[in-house]
């Protein structure tokens, strides 16, 4: 992947497939370390599935939804000296508290750190593709304070204006880009 924002798009799509109702995407940059968390309240994975998702060759037809996404994220993190950890609770075993949390850390001053890239476009694409799911996006560093909460947006838009309306998607991209520009 040319940008980490593409990994974010790809990994968050797993949460969509896991029937999440809320997907939290957070980036925190502190002292040369970027911590990316993608957490959902979807169906979760059983321990035996979780064990295999790091390995691209584990994938079979029935579990092909896992595929190369996690291995590519792991590669991007590990080539900077960082790592990826996944915690998951399957709905069968945790009916009231299920979901998956993917955490990746990156050393941002490492020469092999992949640029973060266009996160506003990633959020536009995710929300366009799943207008009924809620997203909480945050990106914080010493200089940055960027946030988007679709639940807050829905309160204003009401039930008749879907989040994938062109005007709303434009607003989302515009709002995020302005927040990034304001932070520079």
């Amino acid at each position, binding site marked *: 992947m040319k940008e980490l924002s593409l990994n974010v798009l790809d990994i968050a799509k797993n949460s969509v497939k896991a029937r999440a109702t809320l997907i939290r995407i957070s980036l925190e940059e502190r002292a040369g370390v970027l911590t990316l968390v993608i957490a959902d309240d979807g169906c979760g994975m059983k321990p035996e599935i979780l064990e295999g998702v790091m390995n691209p060759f584990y994938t079979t037809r029935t579990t092909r939804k896992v595929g*190369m996404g996690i291995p590519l994220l792991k590669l991007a993190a590990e080539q900077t000296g960082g790592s990826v950890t996944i915690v998951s609770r399957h709905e069968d075993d945790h009916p009231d508290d299920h979901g998956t949390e993917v955490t990746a850390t990156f050393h941002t001053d490492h020469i092999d750190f992949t640029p973060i890239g266009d996160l506003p476009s*990633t959020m536009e694409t995710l929300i366009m593709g799943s207008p009924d799911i809620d997203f909480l996006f945050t990106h914080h560093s010493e200089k940055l304070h960027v946030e988007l909460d679709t639940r807050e947006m829905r309160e204003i838009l009401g039930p008749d204006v879907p989040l994938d*309306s*062109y*005007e709303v998607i434009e607003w989302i991209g515009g709002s995020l880009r302005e927040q990034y520009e304001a932070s520079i």
Partner: protein
Amino acid sequence: MKSLAELAAIRDKMKDKVVLREGTNDTRIVVGMATCGIAAGARPVLSAFVESVNREGLADRVTVSQTGCIGICQYEPVVEVFQPGKEKVTYVKMTAEKADRVVKEHIKGGKVVEEYTIAKNA
């Protein structure tokens, strides 16, 4: 700053619009957005289709959507166009510029951009 007030204005504007969705005469543009598609550049292709469809005033009869892996990863970004009564058209190795041309010539003009189809690129 894009404010929440601006969002309220969008809501008020859209209330007056009659939203006709999922009509039977709709054209569907489907962009492959699995890991393979994303890695090959599908995100800007999708954005270009959405922007172009709106710019050309086609939004009420054309939907742009995302799908998973279509199974021909080496040809990504792959885009399929479905139109009622017509055979599916599969465009391969798409870019934002090609997307714009497909909207203008095929979706609006009715003429398939043959040189971008899988038949001409396989």
